[in-house]
């Protein structure tokens, strides 16, 4: 079947939508290389829809449904999860109705619901980029104790429901 290449304008619209998809995926995998691979995969799967010249709103819905699924596959493969566990993980990794743009304060709201120590260790480590040693010095603790606290704080953060 012969199809014309995508018109330049359609490509621009697609790229703008894919910016949102990239942000959505990046916010969940936390690194550029994986986010780029997964965004490209979403784009490749969406090409027929994009070529059709569907309205941006319809394209967005399809792109995000695809992104959710691709993310599910990513976590499933990387963690070696079974089918049943993947469902749980999908719920964990991607909300039912993804916003088209991530709210910047989501993480702050999650942190705000943690105990003081848990919030502090995650703020220092992730938001301020402290090493374990620096966190330990700041909190008058040891590296070993900070590592354990970091793990418990992450487990607690995962339980906080996003609203």
């Amino acid at each position: 079947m012969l199809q014309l290449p995508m018109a330049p304008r359609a490509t621009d619209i697609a790229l703008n939508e894919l910016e949102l998809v990239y942000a959505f995926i990046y916010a969940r995998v936390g690194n550029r290389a994986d986010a780029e691979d997964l965004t490209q995969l979403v784009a490749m799967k969406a090409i027929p829809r994009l070529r059709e010249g569907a309205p941006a709103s319809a394209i967005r819905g399809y792109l995000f449904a695809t992104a959710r699924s691709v993310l599910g596959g990513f976590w499933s493969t990387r963690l070696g999860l079974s089918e049943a566990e993947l469902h749980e993980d999908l719920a964990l990794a991607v909300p039912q109705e993804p916003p088209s743009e991530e709210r910047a304060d989501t993480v702050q709201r999650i942190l705000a619901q943690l105990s003081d120590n848990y919030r502090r260790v995650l703020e220092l480590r992730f938001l301020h980029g402290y090493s374990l040693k620096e966190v330990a010095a700041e909190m008058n603790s040891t590296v070993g104790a900070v590592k354990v606290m970091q793990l418990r704080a992450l487990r607690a953060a995962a339980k906080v429901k996003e609203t």
Partner: protein
Amino acid sequence: MNKPENRVDKIVADLLRGRRLRLRGGDAEEKAAITAAARLAAARQGPPRMNPAFRKRLESALESAPNGPWLTRRAALVAGLGLAAGAVTGGLVGRALEPAHPATLGPAARVGGAVVNPRNGRWIDVAAISDLVEGQGKRVAAGGVGAYLFRRGDSVRAVSSICSDLPCELSWSGSGGVLNCSCHPASFTPEGKSTNEKYPLPALNPVQVRVTAAGRVEVLGTA
């Protein structure tokens, strides 16, 4: 290094250095902590934008992508999407259960899915044939192989419970008599054929099934 706090800190340290997530099977125990760490690592830099070089690559990929109604999983692999495509191909089914792909990609690849042929597969008892109702799909699991069984008289056929387009679990709709994908508007007949005429998806992968003399249904799955 076997303690969970050490392993999770290694993953955190990689994320904070901007590296890929390098995970292994045992990490599933801490999946909640790991996914939370990925989200926190992402939040460090405010709203992310695509790197201009990546945007350019994506643009040229969009404009030069192969034609066809859908990019098949095999085409994604051929296109060099590497691990990301592997995530979809393996997906729920798992790499060991990846269907044997046809050697060449042609129309036939989209007409009939390849039979699920697990490495080191073994026959797993999943049901009694008397449990199956004609005209109704029954979801079973043979180790890592998920399948829907359909009875016709004394014989049973089975198709994969995973959508052929996205790595998502299908659900049986008794009223519609179809298998619906949980991730996008796609459905399949009990024979595994896509019901969408406008965007015909690849057929579901058939799953190997047999009925024993004692009336038990066995599916070729994994231990």
